[in-house]
C-alpha cells in the first residue's frame, strides 16, 4: 500500500480509487461470498443431491405420466389429509423421483401444527420413508440465509454480501484496464502477476453470468430489502391477494360451502394442462377444500423452457372439473421480477444448460477464491519481516485456508454424515448439519494451529481423500455402488460418484501445486509504474 508514494501526484485517479474499493469490498465479506457462491453452485444440482441423500427411494429411470400420478396422489391426500383447506403436490419430473406434497391441517387448534408434508411414491401413491435429511436443500438454503440464526438476519447478511459483490464487479471492471488486450493472457510462474491473470480470466470469461447472478440474487429478496414501495401501494387484503396472484400459482382457500362434493378427475385437469404445455411440463397441482362443493384446483405450468418464474396456471372448479380461468400472463413489473428470478434459479434449463450454469458458477467461486488468495500474495511481498506478519495478514491468511479448503472438507463431511449417522438417530437431519459446522470449525482450528502452507496442503489433501472415498462409502453403506448404478442406468448415483472423483482430482492437483510452490525472492521494484489517469496505479 505504500508503493510509489513519491512518484504519485496529489490527485488520485479513478482507476486507483476503484482498485482500492475492489480490494476491500472483495475482502471484507469475501469468505461469506465464497461460501455463498460454492453452496449456490452445487444447488444447481440440489434435486440430484437430495436423491443421492435419500438412497432408500428407488432410482427413477423413466418419468411416469404426471396426469396419472396426480390422480393417484390426490386420492391418497384425500385419505392422509381429509378436509384439508389446501393441499399442493409437486409432480415428478426427470430430476425428482418422488412426489412432494404439503397440506394445511383441517381444524388445527392454536398451538397445533397447521401444516403437514410428505414424500409419496409415484407408482403406488403411498408415503415413502427415508432417512431424515434436508438433502440438497441445506446447501440451497444456506447460500442465501445461512444457519443458526433467524432467517431474516441471514438474508440480510446475504443481501449485504451480494451488494458488496456487485460493487466489487463494477469496480473490478473499471480497474481492469486491459479487458480485451489481456483477454487470453496468462503469465505462468510470475507469482502475483499469475494470480492476477487467473483472477481476471475467471472474472472476464463469466462476467455476464457473475453480474447477472449477483444482481438477480438481490432481486429475489427485494421485497425484504426494499419493502417501502409495496407497503405504500398494497394496503387492503384484496390488494394483497392480487399481488400474491401475480407472484405465485398457489390459489388461496376461500370459505367452504359445507356441502359435500367429490373432487372431479384431477387426471383430466392435468391432461388439459399437458395439451397446452406438454406432457412433462406440468409442475404443480394445488387444491382448496377438496371434497367440498366450493373446491378449486389449480394446475400450474412447469419451469422448463421458459425464462420466467411468473405463475401460469389453469383454474378449475373442483366438483365438476370445469375450466374456470386460464392464467397465462402477469403485469410488466411482475414479469420483470419473474424473468430475473428465473435467471437466478435456472430451473428452466435442460441438462446441458444446467451444466453450463454449474461450470460458470464454479468459475465465479474460483474468482472469489483467487481474489482472496491474491490479497495475501500481494501483501506477503511487502511484509517487513515475512516470518512475523502483522495480525491482519495472519487473520486473512487463516480465514482463507478454512474458508476455501476447509469449506470443501466440511461440505464433503456433510455427505459422509448422511451415510454414517444411524438412520434411527433422533433429529438426524439437524445432526448432518451440525456435522458440517463442527468439521468446518475444526478446519479453522487446524488452520490456526498449523503453519499456513502445511495447513493448505493438508486440508486440500483431506478434501481430495474424502471426495475420492465417498463413492466407496456409498458402495459399502447402500446397495447402490457405482458399477450397479452404471449398469442400471441410474444417472444420479453414477453421476454423483463420477463427480466426486473429478472434484477429488481437482483438489489433489491443487494440493500438489501448493506443495511444490516455492515463493520467489522479492523482485527489485521499479521506481515508477505506468501512469494511469494522471496518477500511478498501485496494486495493493
Amino acid at each position, binding site marked *: 500500500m505504500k508503493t510509489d508514494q513519491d512518484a504519485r501526484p496529489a490527485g488520485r485517479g479513478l482507476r486507483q480509487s476503484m482498485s482500492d474499493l475492489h480490494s476491500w469490498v472483495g475482502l471484507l465479506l469475501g469468505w461469506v461470498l465464497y461460501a455463498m457462491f460454492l453452496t449456490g453452485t452445487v444447488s444447481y444440482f440440489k434435486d440430484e443431491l437430495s436423491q443421492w441423500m435419500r438412497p432408500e427411494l428407488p432410482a427413477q429411470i423413466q418419468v411416469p405420466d404426471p396426469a396419472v400420478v396426480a390422480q393417484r396422489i390426490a386420492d391418497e391426500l384425500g385419505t392422509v389429509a381429509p378436509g384439508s383447506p389446501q393441499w399442493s403436490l409437486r409432480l415428478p419430473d426427470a430430476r425428482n423421483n418422488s412426489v412432494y406434497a404439503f397440506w394445511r391441517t383441517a381444524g388445527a387448534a392454536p398451538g397445533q401444527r397447521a401444516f403437514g408434508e410428505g414424500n409419496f411414491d409415484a407408482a403406488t401413491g403411498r408415503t415413502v420413508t427415508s432417512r431424515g435429511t434436508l438433502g440438497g436443500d441445506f446447501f440451497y438454503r444456506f447460500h442465501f440465509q445461512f444457519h443458526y440464526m433467524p432467517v431474516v438476519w441471514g438474508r440480510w447478511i446475504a443481501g449485504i454480501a451480494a451488494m458488496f459483490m456487485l460493487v466489487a464487479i463494477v469496480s473490478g471492471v473499471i480497474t481492469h484496464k486491459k479487458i480485451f488486450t489481456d483477454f*487470453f493472457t496468462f503469465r*505462468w510462474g510470475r507469482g502475483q502477476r499469475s494470480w492476477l491473470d487467473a483472477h481476471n*480470466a475467471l472474472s472476464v470469461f*463469466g462476467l455476464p453470468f457473475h453480474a447477472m447472478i449477483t444482481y438477480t440474487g438481490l432481486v429475489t429478496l427485494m421485497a425484504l430489502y426494499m419493502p417501502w414501495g409495496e407497503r405504500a401501494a398494497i394496503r387492503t387484503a384484496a390488494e394483497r391477494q392480487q399481488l400474491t396472484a401475480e407472484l405465485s400459482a398457489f390459489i388461496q382457500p376461500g370459505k367452504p360451502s359445507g356441502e359435500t362434493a367429490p373432487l372431479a378427475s384431477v387426471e383430466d385437469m392435468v391432461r388439459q394442462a399437458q395439451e397446452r404445455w406438454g406432457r412433462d411440463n406440468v409442475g404443480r397441482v394445488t387444491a382448496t377444500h377438496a371434497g367440498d362443493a366450493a373446491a378449486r384446483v389449480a394446475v400450474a405450468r412447469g419451469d422448463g423452457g*421458459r*425464462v420466467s418464474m411468473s405463475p401460469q396456471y389453469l383454474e378449475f372448479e373442483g366438483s365438476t372439473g370445469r375450466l374456470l380461468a386460464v392464467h397465462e400472463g402477469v403485469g410488466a413489473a411482475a414479469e420483470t421480477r419473474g424473468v430475473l428470478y428465473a435467471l437466478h434459479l435456472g430451473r428452466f434449463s435442460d441438462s*446441458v*444448460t444446467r451444466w453450463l*450454469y454449474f461450470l460458470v458458477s464454479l468459475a465465479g467461486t474460483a474468482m472469489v477464491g483467487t481474489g482472496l488468495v491474491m490479497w495475501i500474495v500481494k501483501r506477503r511481498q511487502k511484509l517487513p519481516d515475512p516470518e512475523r506478519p502483522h495480525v491482519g495478514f495472519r487473520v486473512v491468511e487463516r480465514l482463507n485456508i478454512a474458508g476455501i479448503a476447509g469449506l470443501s472438507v466440511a461440505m464433503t463431511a456433510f455427505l459422509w454424515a448422511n451415510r454414517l449417522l444411524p438412520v434411527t438417530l433422533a433429529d438426524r437431519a439437524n445432526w448432518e448439519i451440525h456435522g458440517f459446522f463442527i468439521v468446518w470449525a475444526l478446519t479453522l482450528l487446524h488452520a490456526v494451529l498449523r503453519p499456513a502452507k502445511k495447513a493448505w496442503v493438508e486440508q486440500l489433501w483431506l478434501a481430495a481423500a474424502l471426495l475420492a472415498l465417498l463413492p466407496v462409502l456409498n458402495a459399502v453403506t447402500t446397495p447402490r455402488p457405482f458399477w450397479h448404478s452404471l449398469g442400471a442406468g441410474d444417472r444420479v448415483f453414477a453421476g454423483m460418484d463420477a463427480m466426486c472423483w473429478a472434484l477429488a482430482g481437482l483438489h489433489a492437483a491443487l494440493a500438489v501445486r501448493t506443495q511444490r510452490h516455492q515463493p520467489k525472492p522479492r523482485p527489485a521494484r521499479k521506481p515508477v509504474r505506468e501512469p494511469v489517469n494522471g496518477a500511478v496505479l498501485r496494486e495493493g
Partner: protein
Amino acid sequence: MIHLSSFILCLTGFAALAVAMDRQQHDLFGRSLPAPATASLRAGGAAALLGALGLLVAWQGWGLGLVMFSGHTSLGAGIVHGAIIGGLRMRAKARGG
C-alpha cells in the same frame, strides 16, 4: 445437437480471436501474423460467435437462446484459454524450461 454445434462454433470462434491477438501470435508463432491474416481471423472468429448466437436464438428464442449463448461463450473462452496455457507449458517443458 444444436448445443454441440453452438459450442463448437464458440470454441473455434474464440480460438480464432485468440490467435488474432498480438501477444498470442508472439507466444505461439514467435512473430506477428500479417495484417490480412489477423483481420481474417478476427472476422472469422466474430462470425462464428454470431453463428452460435443465431443457432441458439433460432432454436429457443431470444430469452433462453441468450442464456445458453452466454454459457457456451464463457465455457468456450475458458477452454481456449486453458488450451493456450497448456500448449505453451508443454512447449516450455519440451525445451527444458
